């Protein structure tokens, strides 16, 4: 099954890796990329701009009901959960936080797994809580591919360790290997 979408999740310690990944995408990237990263809820400005600084493709926060397009990079907006509808539109919501997080990786990864099934490639990076564990399990249950940053290579390993405990990933990679992996997409 070819990859239909890439989802990347992370929290504390993931920002610099995401910045490096964003430099890699070629202009004719045939799939959409989604970033679900824990961030400060009261700060709306600055995060998206910083991610865009060296990104090879524009990163933007989608609006609710926006159509998902290949070659676009979508950043889950601050203080909203991000989900995907079956008709490939973005759905935002303000339901309760999950693991004190909104956007929550569990919510987004589960929703993406439900829509893209085996065509989903999920990448979980460094983070300080267990958000993402259930989402990664859902990706796997739906036949998707899971890549997790090597906990020994993480700035904060809690998130990746927790996910690995519940789900056997397809690959566990260091940052340099992740960069290599993504550059082949």
């Amino acid at each position: 099954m070819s990859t239909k979408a890439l989802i990347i999740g992370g929290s504390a310690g993931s920002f610099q890796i995401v910045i490096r990944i964003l430099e890699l995408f070629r202009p004719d990237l045939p799939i959409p990329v989604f970033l679900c990263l824990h961030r400060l809820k009261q700060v709306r400005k600055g995060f998206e701009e910083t991610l865009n600084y060296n990104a090879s493709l524009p990163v933007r926060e989608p609006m609710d009901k926006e159509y998902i397009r290949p070659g676009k990079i979508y950043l889950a907006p601050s203080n909203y959960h991000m989900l995907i509808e079956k008709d490939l539109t973005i759905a935002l919501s303000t339901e309760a936080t999950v693991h004190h997080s909104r956007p929550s990786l569990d919510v987004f990864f589960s929703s993406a797994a439900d829509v893209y099934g085996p065509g989903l490639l999920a990448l979980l990076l460094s983070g300080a809580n267990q958000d993402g564990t259930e989402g990664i399990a859902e990706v796997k249950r739906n036949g998707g591919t899971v890549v997790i940053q090597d906990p020994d290579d993480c700035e904060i390993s809690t998130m990746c360790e927790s996910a690995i405990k519940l789900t056997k990933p397809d690959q566990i990679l260091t940052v340099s290997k992740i960069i290599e992996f993504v550059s082949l997409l």
Partner: protein
Amino acid sequence: MFTVSILEARTLIRAVKKASGRDLSGLAMASFRYRLSLILHSYKLDNIDSLIATIQKDSDNLDRLISDISIGSPDMFRNPDLWIHIRENLLPIIFASRRYPEVYIPQCVTGDELYTLAIFLKEAGLDYKVDLIATCPDQRIKDQILNGELLNSRFKNSKDNFEVYNPDLTFEEYTETLQGKKYIKKELLEGIEVKIQGDDEPFCSEKTALVIYRNRMLYQNAEMQYKTLRKLLSDMEKGTCFIIGMGESIDGFGLEQYYKDLSSDFKIYIKKDVH
């Protein structure tokens, strides 16, 4: 997390309609299925059929389900920068053309947006009275809103937001603790009107200066959004302002001739004069 399929969600929608007449078919499906999955888990039920059986057996279960499906604003002073922007730049414009201004907050499920407004207007120290009117779907929610209780789960976020909005004050100035529970101060609720809104009732009146309708359209599918937006714009008088959520968009519905941006960055619009 998404243990409820679209088919099962639609089966439940039909069952609720049959049991209560309430039409949930306009709900956005992804978030609805997410909530249903959480509900099954918290009710300790295995599937939608069991949930349907519980609502058919007891109308209290149906009310509880409707309440659990409904999503309110998650905390007070959400997007504190929006409230700062209104306070510093927009108050005179919003209320300029109204002699007895009202603010309407349609389709409330919690009181958070209403309490925010009450504090905001008190702090603004206007030399004229602004009536605060909220609408909600049923008596149970109306009682909850007027009860003024602030759930612990939302108290911290509300406090954090407020203290960004006004670093010179503490949130506790506007709250009180009674028997271990936190409430918005009673004096802030005085004069607030909460109405139960039927499907066809208006979103506002001719006196309304501002309609706050943030993050409600998120839970509607595109068809319902169009209906809602058309009704909202039709109910508003020229010069009435309205605010939607930062993640929501009203462009692309073909209704652009009825409104213009007052502050696109904060999703604040004003109804245009339409002939």
